[in-house]
């Protein structure tokens, strides 16, 4: 059997695809920013003096990291709507993604924080820095700098995983593609086009994170190496 490829009917829908890609970018951007803040707070909580807070964050992190995003999204979205809590579908998608990525970010940042030498904290204390200053300049920034590569690849994975949000009805790139698929019946072509768009998005994202790293982390010496 010779299959006749027909991309024209798919590519004719480019405004829709573009719109979907834009929603995917928005979803990923919001989830990355809010998830980063949540993750940083959780990393802080995991090193807290209070046992209950440490345990609470521990349960959250282990619970999320050992269950699939799909089930989390179903549980959250369908669960909430079954008890009468409804929200715009994109807000729900962002919420599910944030809860998911927060746990991963927490673990990554915690690893960064643990790699910071005790002497640094003592030195900061000696300099009379306030608690907030110590947290920002001595703990968080160097920690994030150290784990920046794993952090950013986790965020790229998040963008790719946002396609799962189509299953709870979010009209992002994959959801839009499903719609085009049912209009044109060009299943394979759709998936090839999707593949190309997601690849382009992930390269753009990596480039963006690289640029951001160049701007935020200005030191040229590799962290942790002797002067």
């Amino acid at each position, binding site marked *: *059997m010779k299959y006749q490829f027909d991309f024209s009917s798919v590519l004719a829908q480019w405004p829709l695809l573009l719109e979907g890609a834009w929603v995917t970018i928005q979803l990923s951007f919001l989830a990355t920013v809010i998830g980063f803040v949540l993750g940083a707070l959780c990393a802080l909580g995991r090193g807290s003096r209070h046992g209950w807070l440490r345990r609470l964050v521990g349960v959250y992190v282990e619970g999320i*990291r050992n*269950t699939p*995003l799909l*089930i989390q999204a179903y*549980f959250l979205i369908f*669960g909430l709507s079954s*008890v009468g809590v409804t929200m715009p579908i994109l807000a729900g998608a962002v919420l599910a993604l944030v809860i998911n990525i927060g746990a991963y970010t927490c673990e990554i940042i915690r690893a960064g924080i643990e790699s910071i030498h005790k002497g640094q904290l003592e030195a900061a204390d000696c300099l009379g820095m306030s608690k907030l200053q110590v947290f920002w300049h001595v703990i968080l920034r160097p920690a994030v700098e150290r784990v920046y590569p794993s952090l950013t690849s986790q965020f790229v994975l998040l963008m*790719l995983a946002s396609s799962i949000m189509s299953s709870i009805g979010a009209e992002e790139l994959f959801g839009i593609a499903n719609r085009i698929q049912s209009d044109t019946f060009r299943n394979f072509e759709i998936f090839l086009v999707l593949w190309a768009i*997601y690849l382009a998005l992930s390269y753009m994202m990596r480039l963006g994170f690289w640029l951001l790293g160049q701007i935020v982390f200005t030191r040229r010496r590799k962290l942790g190496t002797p002067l």
Partner: protein
Amino acid sequence: MTHEQLTYLLLGAVGTLELSVLTFIAGGLAGLGMALARISPVRGVRVAAAAWIQVVQGTPLLVLMGLCFYGPNIIGIGSVPALVAAALAMTIYSSAFLGEIWRGCIQSVHKSQWEAAECIGLTRWQRMAKVVLPQALRIATPPTVGFMVQIIKNTSIASLVIGFAELSYNAKVLNNSTFQPFIYFGCAALLYFAMCYPLSRWSRTLERKLNATRG
């Protein structure tokens, strides 16, 4: 939840395990090939493997599933069973990630070991099989066990495009007929957790042991 519904969920969990084991075996073999190709002495092979890994790691698993589901029909093999399509997509996906993990492990074996093996006149394959890989295996165990957790979780995506009847799919079916999402998705989450958490713990223990012996 009735007895039948629980059985149905557990049946789904069996499907999840089936797909995970298949993926781990096939993906492991493909990943090993990928890791060896990444450090091949032939430049072309190295570049091709690196490109493969880059491309697969930039593709959502959901899209890979779609390509593997509709692809065989297009190239004339005819339609494949859902399990085969899902396992194929998961294998491609795992090969890229395991390949990259294992390449790191192989390269972290001390350089002097490679040189010593060369000095006593072992061929490249003997060097790999008898000197480097056994040592790399020890380093590779914790992240590999960690990746098994990823595999189990990612099988849930097979329920979407392909519609393979695993745990998430069955939970969705039950929810669609009963509208009790907290119960069914909660149970599904617990079942996933029961499969993944021991592996996560095991991975961490292995890592601690490895650090202790190397420390």
